[in-house]
């Protein structure tokens, strides 16, 4: 039962940096859901946390982009954004777990890149701020390319997740796996501020039902149609692969216009699935 916790949640910088901009009711419903996720994470007494996450030109540029990059550092620092209103922190890594994931990926015919020096931006720091505010839990960030086409397909991200799930299940430690980002949003692009609530809710249904076929059958253009940032749902699809059929529960979903993003918080019933 080493997969001891799983959740998915948004990482929009506004959640922390522009708190007051959002309608109070939406904000409180989301904060309450994040609080519930934190309570469940703490109850699971985790020893490490794997994140399927995104970055926003923080580490990688077009001189070198990989579909997936696994962080195997002893320690990660962030956030890189001085305006994020999250204190600078050093977050411990779990290099041995990162190595086990890399090895398992090779066995699954997936060859991720790796890095000993990933800087964390809001994509990882906003979720950690709510889930592990002391920043003490060792992490393995897995950065999926959500910036520069061609992006990995949902099918491949699901496979990546399956490889990660296998490692986590056979590890003796109590490990959590989370996905960050999404849902519909188009940051810096023409449809900035447009939220596709119906797309978001359909995607949440697929995650809730652990519907592997629906998750794998999404295409990158379908995700992209809900906004350039909606491709971050590749992280969620990877999580779907890691979950091994565990069903989920939507603790909150709010289309928050001032934060220009559809934001959800989901928990997954990993214990009964194991």
């Amino acid at each position, binding site marked *: 039962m080493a997969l001891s916790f799983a959740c998915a949640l948004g990482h929009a910088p506004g959640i922390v940096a522009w708190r007051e901009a959002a309608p109070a009711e939406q904000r409180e419903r989301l904060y309450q859901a994040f609080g519930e996720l934190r309570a469940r994470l703490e109850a699971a007494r985790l020893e490490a946390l794997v994140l399927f996450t995104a970055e*926003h*030109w923080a580490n990688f*540029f*077009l*001189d070198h982009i990989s579909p997936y990059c696994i962080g195997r550092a002893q320690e990660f620092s962030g956030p890189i954004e001085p305006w994020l209103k999250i204190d600078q922190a050093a977050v411990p890594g779990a290099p041995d777990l990162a190595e086990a994931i890399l090895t398992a990926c090779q066995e699954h015919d997936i060859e991720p890149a790796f890095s000993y020096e990933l800087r964390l931006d809001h994509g990882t720091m906003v979720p950690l701020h709510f889930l592990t505010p002391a920043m003490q839990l060792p992490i393995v960030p897995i950065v999926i390319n959500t*910036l*520069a086409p061609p992006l990995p397909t949902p099918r491949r991200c699901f496979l990546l997740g399956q490889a990660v799930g296998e490692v986590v299940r056979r590890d003796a430690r109590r490990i959590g796996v989370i996905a960050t980002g999404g849902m519909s949003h*188009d*940051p*810096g*692009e*023409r449809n*900035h*501020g447009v939220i596709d609530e119906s797309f978001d809710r359909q995607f949440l249904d697929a995650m809730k039902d652990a519907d592997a076929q629906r998750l794998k059958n999404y295409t990158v253009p379908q995700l992209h149609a809900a906004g*350039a940032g909606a491709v971050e749902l590749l992280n969620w699809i990877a999580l779907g692969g890691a979950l091994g059929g565990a069903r989920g529960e939507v603790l909150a979903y709010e289309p928050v216009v001032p934060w220009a993003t559809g934001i959800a918080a989901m928990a997954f019933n990993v214990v009964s699935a194991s």
Partner: protein
Amino acid sequence: MSIYALQKAIRDVNRDPAKRAAFFESPAGLAAQYALSEAERDALQRRDYATLYALGVHGLLLRPFSILHSVSEADYLRAIRGQG
């Protein structure tokens, strides 16, 4: 097509304090350091967000670049939507 060089110039201005200072001092001088087409160089020097966007600069590079110059979100969106 030198959209790569154009995006690299903008990313450098966003992230490298020395490049940023160079751009603020002389946009043309900074632009000359990159292998840009005439249209790209012109758009970069004039901070013509509509053209930079149309040329293919990624929104998560272009919006931070505009913030360096205190462009409001509304003005930025008007520009890239061609309503400027």
